[in-house]
Structures are given as structure tokens and as C-alpha cells.
């Protein structure tokens, strides 16, 4: 990937220098280190089932991290992204199991709902000029309340289940929640969605005019407006992209697990941001990479499942995870500083 997506705008020709300016190089190295570490310390980490497990863990996180990375490069945050994965799943599940809709139709309705919320987030941020942190915090809380309130109102309980019996479950399950067998091991199809989503986002970011706009609005909205970049449209589209990713992950979850709880997804928004930051995105915007975010999610998945494979006492779980993530970010940071020197 490094050779194919190499940024030709960089003047230097030395390979090391060319590599070092890539935002994702730190994450890539971190991933290699984490991978090597658990390959050595945990027996089953490299077995077929083992690989399928940590790739599975990384996949849904990765889809969200990629979308969030685009938004972060565009200079904004979306705190409603975690809850969105539950909201979309709830909309789909309630329409399919309670209203008796075909699953495909329900999926379409929840997609419209998601894009609407995304557009609303973007529109409100642009309209009010408030930090997206605050605006999306508001939608986060509102969605959380809606999830609980509506679910309880409609079903009388706090979880919606019974998707397996709904019309169109088999065909939609095939698309979102089936498994691919490779060499006797079953891999979740969400892994393919993740790779595909990351590839499209990376292409969008480094090969299209829209990608340039994203970097521009994140780097300096004022000067990008001055040179004719449609700041408003770009940012609204970015918020809609995270909402779209939220819908995709919500759909994958509801069709795979066939039930959804009203309090699902809360707190995940931070994990998305962490994965994006590990992948080389700046919290201040204007710099980062979609591939890096996908790798950030991979590190997360490998560490989270690797700790279990290594049979460490789960009491220390979060400590290990925290230290590992800090290390990844620090490595990343060092590389970025080096990259900035090379650039000058």
C-alpha cells in the first residue's frame, strides 16, 4: 500500500524520507510490533480461528475509525458515532420485528435516518459555528435517550430481538453477516466490508478533489473558503459519512447478533477516535490517513484479543490496553515530527 499510495507532491526522493512522511507509518510499525509480540507470547494467536477472531474484532471498529478519520482530517469530531451504531440497529430491528417490514426495507429506512442525523449534525455545526464536540455531544445524548425511550415504548423491554424470523433476513444476512471460509476457517464478512471501506476512503482521500477539500477544510477553513473550496458541503458530507459508517456497523451487528440492546454503543465513540489517532490523525485536523485508521483498529483488535489469547488475568486488561495504545501513539508522534522535518 505504501508504494501505491505514495504522495507524489513530496519532493524528496529517498525512500526512507518518502516513507517517513506517511501518516500511517507509525501505526504500521506499531501493528507489526503488536503482531510479533502476540505471535510469540500467545499459542493460538496465529491459528486460523485466532486470526479470524482478532480480525473480526478489528473490523467493525475499523469501519468506524476510517470514517471518523476522514471527519477528523476535516477538522471535526462526531461523539454521536458510537450511539449511532445502536440507533440504526434499533430502527432496523423495530421496523423489521415490530412493524413486520422486510429487512431490506427496514435497512433502507435506517439508512435514511442515519444520513438525516449526519446531515443535521453537519448543518448545525456549520450553521451555528459551535464546536462539533458540543453539537454532537448533544445528538449523542439525544440519541441515547431516544434509543431507550422508543425501544421501551414499542417493545415494553429494553432489547429488540427476533430478527432471525423477519422477512428478508437470509438475503440481508448474506450481505452483512455471513462468513467466508478460507482454509477451513470462517471469517466474518465484516472484515471484507472493513477492507473495502478503508480502500474507498483512502482512494477518496488521496486521489480525488473531494480528498483535497477534506485536507483543506481541516487545515484552514478560512483560506480554503477563499480559494473556492465548498467548506459547508464538504463538512456536511463528512458528518454524513460517519453516519453512513454507523449505519453499516449497526446493520452488521443487528444481522449478526439478531438482537440489539438500547444501551449499546455508548462509549465506543472514544475508541473510534483512539484508533484514528493511533493511525496518525491529528486531533487538530488537516493531517491523517484512512489506511492509518484502519491499521489503528487492527492494533486495537490484536491487542484486545491477544491479551485473552495470552491468558493474562483480565483484571489488568485495561492497563495493558492503555500502555499499548500510549506506546503506539508515542511512536506515531515521533515519526510525525520526523516527517515534518523532512518536509521542510
Amino acid at each position, binding site marked *: 500500500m505504501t508504494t501505491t499510495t505514495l504522495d507524489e507532491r513530496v519532493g524528496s526522493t529517498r525512500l526512507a524520507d518518502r516513507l517517513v512522511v506517511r501518516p500511517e507509518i507509525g501505526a504500521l510499525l506499531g501493528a507489526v510490533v503488536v503482531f510479533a509480540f502476540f505471535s510469540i507470547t500467545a499459542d493460538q494467536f496465529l491459528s486460523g*480461528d*485466532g486470526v479470524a477472531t482478532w480480525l473480526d474484532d478489528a473490523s467493525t471498529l475499523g469501519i468506524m475509525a476510517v470514517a471518523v478519520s476522514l471527519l477528523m482530517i476535516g477538522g471535526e469530531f462526531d461523539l454521536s458515532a458510537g450511539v449511532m451504531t445502536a440507533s440504526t440497529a434499533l430502527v432496523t430491528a423495530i421496523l423489521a420485528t415490530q412493524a413486520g417490514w422486510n429487512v431490506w426495507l427496514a435497512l433502507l429506512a435506517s439508512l435514511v435516518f442515519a444520513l438525516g442525523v449526519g446531515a443535521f449534525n453537519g448543518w448545525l455545526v456549520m450553521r451555528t459555528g459551535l464546536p462539533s464536540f458540543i453539537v454532537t455531544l448533544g445528538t449523542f445524548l439525544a440519541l441515547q435517550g431516544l434509543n431507550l425511550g422508543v425501544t421501551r415504548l414499542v417493545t415494553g423491554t429494553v432489547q429488540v430481538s427476533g*430478527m*432471525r424470523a423477519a422477512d428478508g433476513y437470509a438475503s440481508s444476512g448474506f450481505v452483512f453477516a*455471513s462468513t467466508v471460509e478460507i482454509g477451513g476457517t470462517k471469517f466474518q464478512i465484516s472484515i471484507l466490508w472493513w477492507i*473495502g471501506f478503508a480502500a474507498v476512503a483512502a482512494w477518496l482521500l488521496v486521489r480525488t478533489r473531494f480528498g483535497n477539500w477534506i485536507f483543506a477544510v481541516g487545515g484552514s477553513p478560512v483560506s480554503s473558503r477563499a480559494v473556492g473550496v465548498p467548506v459547508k458541503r464538504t463538512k456536511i458530507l463528512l458528518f454524513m459519512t460517519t453516519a453512513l459508517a454507523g449505519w453499516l456497523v449497526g446493520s452488521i451487528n443487528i444481522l449478526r447478533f439478531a438482537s440489539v440492546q438500547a*444501551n449499546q454503543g455508548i462509549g465506543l465513540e472514544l475508541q473510534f477516535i483512539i484508533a484514528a489517532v493511533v493511525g496518525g490523525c491529528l486531533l487538530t485536523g488537516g493531517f491523517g490517513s484512512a489506511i492509518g485508521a484502519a491499521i489503528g483498529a487492527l492494533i486495537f483488535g490484536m491487542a484486545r484479543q491477544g491479551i485473552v489469547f495470552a491468558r493474562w488475568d483480565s483484571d489488568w486488561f485495561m492497563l495493558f490496553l492503555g500502555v499499548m495504545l500510549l506506546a503506539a501513539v508515542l511512536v506515531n508522534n515521533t515519526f510525525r515530527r520526523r516527517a515534518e522535518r523532512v518536509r521542510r
Partner: protein
Amino acid sequence: MTSNRSGRLSLVAAAAALLLAACTGPAAEDPSSGSGQEVPAETGPFRIAVISHGTAGDAFWNVVKNGAEDAGRALGVPVEYNSDGDPGNQAKLIDNAVAQRVGGLVVSMQNPEAVRPSIEGAVRAGIPVVTINSGEEQSAAYGALTHIGQSEGIAGEQAGRKFKEAGKTKLLCVIHEAGNIGQNQRCDGAARGFGSAERLQVDISNPTDVQARIRGAVQTDPSIDAVLTLNSQVAANAVNAVKQVQSQAQVATFDLNADVVSAIKTGDVLFAVDQQQYEQGYLPIVFLKLYRDNRNVVGGGRPVLTGPDLVDKSTVDQIGAYVERGTR
């Protein structure tokens, strides 16, 4: 610019390959298919994985963990405990244990449908599964050996009835985790046993909020004379709240801890519904060991109930010591 074009081409090629793979590769799993062919588990050291839905640091699940580890030590079986409150993540932990080819699996099913494919995958791989805590109705259908737990509805009903026997007239049931289905079943049960019950939603991660909201509830409705909490920490908050406004309401709770024990002794808490979750950690290890060594199945696969055991002033003295030890 040639590198640019080849880069784009290779990306397109990669995307196309992905699409092809996505189109031809997978097959939707037949939702009705139960256990397929039985593949015997790999022989080797007998390890048991316990995977619960409790969050890290939860006092209740700590007792379950102690039970499982004590049983493991007593029987010489290595036991690993992992947990995640998110049903999807819990399913991934089960897949992880299956990938490790553990000798036995103990799973709590707060959200049975979500962990169903993973549990069925374990059964298909020839790993014996015992479900604990919640998910009694689905346990056998998913292929588990047996279920060990308490029926939340029955436990709630008994609590409601006990309040009624104590002559109470209006019951408030405090739910501390909005999305927890077991808590809703307890309150439903309490409403059945008592006649009716009002619900109050609080957030357990914020004790100040818990106390303030319970205080508000008993203050605005002085006719409330019974408060049922579903967690020992919430019980302590409820006792404080009731005292602050000098309400006549009496508190009872699910689950024991040291505070609840002393509160029962002083009469601040009327009784506690103890589901004896230590058994939910201990027994499955014994059952799985017996199954492996002797192919024993307890109770013909019917659920084994660990509770409820109602702890009040008459029994609290003996049980209090075990709470301190971390086994009640």
C-alpha cells in the same frame, strides 16, 4: 505520473477482487441449523474459560470469579475468567475461547440471541458449554449441557411478596442500568408479587445522582413505603436517601455486600435477595469436570437454581462472615 496511474489501477484491482470475494465466498448461515457434526475437542490439558457479561470491577461478578477460581484450584483445573458488558464483544471473547480449543466453556447470557452463534460454534467444535446467571430459557436450545442461575422473575416475585407480607402498600423499584433486561424482569416480578410497582431509573455510575433521585421520589410521594433496589451499592444510597427525608419507606435489595449486611443488622435494610452467585462460578467448573471425567449431566439438563435465598435479620449473622470473605 505513471506510478500514480498504476497505483489507481492496483487499487481498482484490489477493490474488484474484494467484490468478487464478497460475491462468491460467503454463504448465509442457516439460522435454523442447530448443532452439526460433532468434532471431538483436542486432547491436552483441560482448561475452562468463563466468559461473563459483567463489567470489570463489578462486585457481584467478582464473587462469581472467586467461585470459579476456587473450584478450579480445588479440582486442579486451570480457569480463565474474561468479561465484557457489550454482547457483541462478549461473543468475540467466546469465539476467542473456541479458537483456543478450551476444554469447557461457561457463559452468562444477558443477551442470548447475540451470543447464540458463538455458543453454537463452541458446541459444534465439541466444547461442552454450561450457561450461568441469565438465559435459562435459551440454554438447552443452544446446545448447552445445563444452566445454573436464578430466575429473575421468580426472585423479583418473592421480594415483592415478602414486602407485602411486611404490610407495605406502595412499592418503588429502582433500575440502575437502563438497558439491562434482567433488571426489568426483576421489577416485573416484584410487581407481580406485590400487586404493582413504580419504577425509577438511576445511573449506577453516579452515586450522587442515585441518592438524589431516590430522595426526590420518596419525598414527592410520601405514600411510598417500600423501596426495592437491585444492587447492593444502590441499596446503601437508598438507605441514605430515605433517612435524609425521614421517610417511613423501608429498603430491600438484591445482592449482598458488607454494607448491606450491617444495614440488615441495624434494621435499615429489611432483607436482601441473594442469588448466591458464588455457586454460579463454582458449580459449572464441577459440572464440566464431571462431564469430562465421567460424562455426568446434572439434572438431565434442566436448569439448576442457585437462588433466591432471602437474607434477613435472622440469618444475617452467619452469612455476613462469608460476604467479607468474598464468597457470598
